[in-house]
């Protein structure tokens, strides 16, 4: 077990975003192949549901502003670049702690808005944890040979341990896509279970890399297997695949989450990542979550956006809401 005091210490600061604050963690269950094999996903029907969603739900005025603020609190503000430095990460963390200009928040009558987490590579955990000291914002680290997940298995497990030791409260693992593509569900289950155990008290988000799984049915089945193996969150993408988060994929994954909750009573979180950069899209995602999963999932302990540029668009929309004038990017501090 890779648990260490850094992690628990961090959790103890009381970050509202962390699932165990209010929800019992998903302990997982035995692999139920009958259930996995019975999972279906009709692509065209799912696309129609996803396609009509933005026409069925519309948020206006104060409601739109409030929902956009909610979206901010669900953002895993992310930098996953080869040229990341401690300085760059500190800047990002500062933005995570103060994502919206104070005068805008004042005008909206809200305070204490932060992003859900900051998400970085392993080597950036320490500067991030240091920068976020006393903010309550957890640090998430991508792990297990992110993004391809093809490094030696023992090294992937060790990477989790190192990241947890370094202070990451959340570990975003990548699954071995080949297990899905070859229908080796037992191998996927075993891998996920090992990752979960390696995480200890840190929360584990299972990145399915849905853009590489070939079909929505595979997405549904992989979602179930990862939850059975104890994932706290399931997540669409690394952001590095050619197709990242989409509404149809999200629909499939959250329906799997709903089924898992109905059968086990455990709520697993959901994180779409990559490609969500517009405030309007973020609100559409939230309506999808509200209508398909329910209000309980509209909190950062059960829902996150993996996004880097979404915040900027929301800031501009919020200023427009407050001022009545369309805003400009340079009016908002960068991260």
């Amino acid at each position, binding site marked *: 077990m890779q648990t260490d005091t850094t992690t628990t210490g961090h959790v103890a600061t009381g970050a509202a975003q962390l699932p165990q604050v209010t929800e019992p963690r998903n302990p997982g269950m035995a692999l139920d192949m009958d259930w996995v094999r019975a999972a*279906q996903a009709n692509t065209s029907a799912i*696309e129609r549901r996803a396609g009509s969603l933005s*026409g069925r739900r519309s948020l206006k005025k104060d409601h739109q502003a409030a929902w956009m603020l909610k979206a901010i609190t669900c953002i895993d503000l992310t930098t996953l670049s080869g040229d990341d430095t401690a300085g760059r990460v500190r800047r990002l963390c500062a933005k995570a702690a103060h994502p919206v200009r104070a005068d805008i928040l004042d005008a909206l009558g809200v305070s204490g808005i932060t992003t859900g987490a900051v998400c970085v590579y392993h080597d950036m955990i320490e500067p991030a944890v240091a920068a976020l000291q006393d903010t309550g914002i957890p640090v998430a680290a991508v792990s297990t040979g992110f993004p391809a997940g093809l490094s030696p298995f023992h090294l992937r497990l060790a990477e989790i341990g190192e990241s947890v030791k370094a202070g990451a409260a959340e570990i975003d693992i990548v699954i071995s896509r080949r297990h899905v593509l070859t229908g080796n569900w037992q191998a996927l289950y075993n891998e996920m279970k090992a990752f979960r155990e390696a995480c200890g008290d840190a929360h584990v988000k299972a990145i399915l890399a849905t853009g590489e799984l070939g*079909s929505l049915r595979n997405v549904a089945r992989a979602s179930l297997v990862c939850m059975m193996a104890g994932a706290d969150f399931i997540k669409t993408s690394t952001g590095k695949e050619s197709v990242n988060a989409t509404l149809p994929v999200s629909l499939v994954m959250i329906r799997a989450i709903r089924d898992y909750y109905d059968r086990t009573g455990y709520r697993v979180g959901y994180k779409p990542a990559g490609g969500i950069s517009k405030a309007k899209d973020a609100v559409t995602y939230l309506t999808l979550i509200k209508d398909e999963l329910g209000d309980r999932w509209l909190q950062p302990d059960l829902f996150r956006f993996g996004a880097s540029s979404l915040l900027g668009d929301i800031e501009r929309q919020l200023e427009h809401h407050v001022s009545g004038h369309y805003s400009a990017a340079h009016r908002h501090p960068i991260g």
Partner: protein
Amino acid sequence: MTVKDIFESMEYGPAPESAGEAMAWLERTNRSFGLFIDGQMTAPGEAFETKNPATGEVLATVTQSSPDDVERAVTAARKAQGKWAKLPGHARAKYLYALARLVQKHARLFAVLETLDNGKPIRESRDIDVPLVARHFYYHAGMAQLQDSELPDREALGVCGQIIPWNFPLLMLAWKIAPAIAMGNTVVLKPAEYTPLTALLFAQICQEAGLPKGVVNIVTGNGEVGEAIVSHEDIDKIAFTGSTEVGRIIRRATAGTGKSLTLELGGKSPYIVFDDADIDSAIEGLVDAIWFNQGQVCCAGSRLIVQEGIADRFYAKLRARMDGLRVGNPMDKSIDVGALVDPVQLETITRMVDASDEGDTYRAPCPLPDQGCFYPPTLITGLSPSSTLMQEEIFGPVLVATTFRTPTEAVQIANNTRYGLAATVWSENVNLALDIAPKLVAGVVWVNATNMFDAAAGFGGVRESGFGREGGWEGLMAYTKARGKTQALAPVAPIAAPKDASVDALDRTAKMFIGGKQARPDSGYSRPVWSPKGKLLGHVGLGSRKDIRNAVEAAHAAKGWSKTTGHLRAQILYYIAENLSARAEEFAHRINEMTGKRNGAREVEASVSRLFSYAAWADKYDGAAKPVPLRGVALAMHEPVGVIGAFCPDDAPLLGLVSLVAPAIAMGNRVVAVASDPYPLAATDFYQVLETSDLPAGVVNILTGPHADLAETMAGHLDVDAVWSQSGADLSAIVEHAAAGNLKRTWVNNARARDWSGKDGEGREMLAHATEVKTIWVPYGE
């Protein structure tokens, strides 16, 4: 609520569409409308109010058309028709294109006005109705363009009276007007009393498009106006969409008048979910099936038939989905279910549901507005096919449910209805889905989808859901007729007994042919058949009700014929031709003896050729894959109509019989044919040919007797799917009137003659009468 409160509760807020532009448009008309006749709006006459059903607010007053108004509209349409039809197709195409463009330019105004007048959610009028309206005009602009080259043998019917319902006011207008005017007809259209406003806005865009005056006329009012249209002598065609009850009245009213008729009526469409379906998607499909337009949809998937093993889980998930539906102000952009069209409709639905004490009723717990015509989404499970609510159309947001065990049982339950409009099948197994779809008695089947519509895909029903198709090439059959003039039919009387009879010693008694057996008439009566020269040729039985009953039973028993391949049917038709050819001289002699003419040999030769023609067609009357705007296919499959009663032409004793029976059986129908009344013996000889030709028993049944005595029984038989009358006796009125019972299809001659020996005697026209077009939508994708 503050932003902070909303941030905590994450509730939806109001997202109202503005009614401003629509209200301004109404103000510009002083909220008072006349009629659109001869290209002009008339001064308002005796008026009635049209209201917003969500609020009760009066939107405008609209004119109740008088009989004189209808007269003026028909006169204007008649005056315009000749010139309109003579325009080159390209000229009409330009007008339809202009209408399509104008619908798009005024899309928002149309959508808002529709929602205000009808109560449907603005999302639906904005995202579904109005785009489909534009699509329909674009598509039929193309049809007008292609008419000259692709339909050279068809021409416009003339003046069309069109009566449309309130559930899709503008869309149904488009479905009616676009194909009609594309083909060169002119129209007098009556929108529903509850929802006249978008039709009146459409009148305005007809003016903006510069449409020649009189091509489109719009008369508003109640059912009396509809009656005036239906009974108007100078109208050539009635197209009606609405209730089965009114459709039946119209069928009777137009019987024997020579008017063409298409009816798109009610339904109780099955929605079948197999245990291998994507259940969540099937449930979402139900939202589009029964909670679309408040369930006020003729093809609504209103009968849920779910496989027993998954039923409980399915119902639980469905109830959870219902909990999330939002009912309320239809002008709100976040509303799933709007207002019913009128308090009368609310009262009807409430009464029907309250009258049932069967099953478990679940009402979605969504709050309803304090005022207006709102009914909660409702699910009634645990019903059986014998429950009233499983049989009767509710036309509201009420889903009824039962379970099945096997695919066969699913089909049996699905088809256990008087209706046959649409059906939905959910299964991830392509073998299962594509096996079930053809077995469902319906004009439209959606596989893993529901309520999909497109101008290229035919829409329409079978059984008591009506007849005729709207959309696609097949839809043009409803607005065109074969080119050319016809002659009045000359009745042929049986030859009377001569003063000096010449009787052969050996008695020959022709029997009837029922279920593959020679049968004596149930009546026990016969009549002699005399040659013009006074020779007794034999006796034939006088057919009666019971013989029709027996023959129809036999035809139903031969249902396996409808499942045979075209290749097999072709072989049997060739074989019949071969066996007839072998006895050509005998048949020629018989014909000559009966008619006293000398063309028997030619008639036999033509009959052999005709059998060859339909043997050829048996495996060549192709369906189509329609280019609908979706990833998937919409298959237009030609299916047999079922059991057809056919009154054969009197003047061509053999060729007339062959000309009706051959296309019918080539397409897989079973036939009860009534032989030429004056010259019946060629038909009764013909059954000996059938007996030696491997035709299964019951596929063709041949009766004899006076047509007029049998017509009412045949046309009134509730298990006969179509009746054709090409009799020398004019049975058109009797047949069409009696056909109203089960709204069977009819093909009557309206006392016009046809040259059975020429090209008008065979071909696609008959094949179209012998088939139903079933549109099977199969969206796909992995």
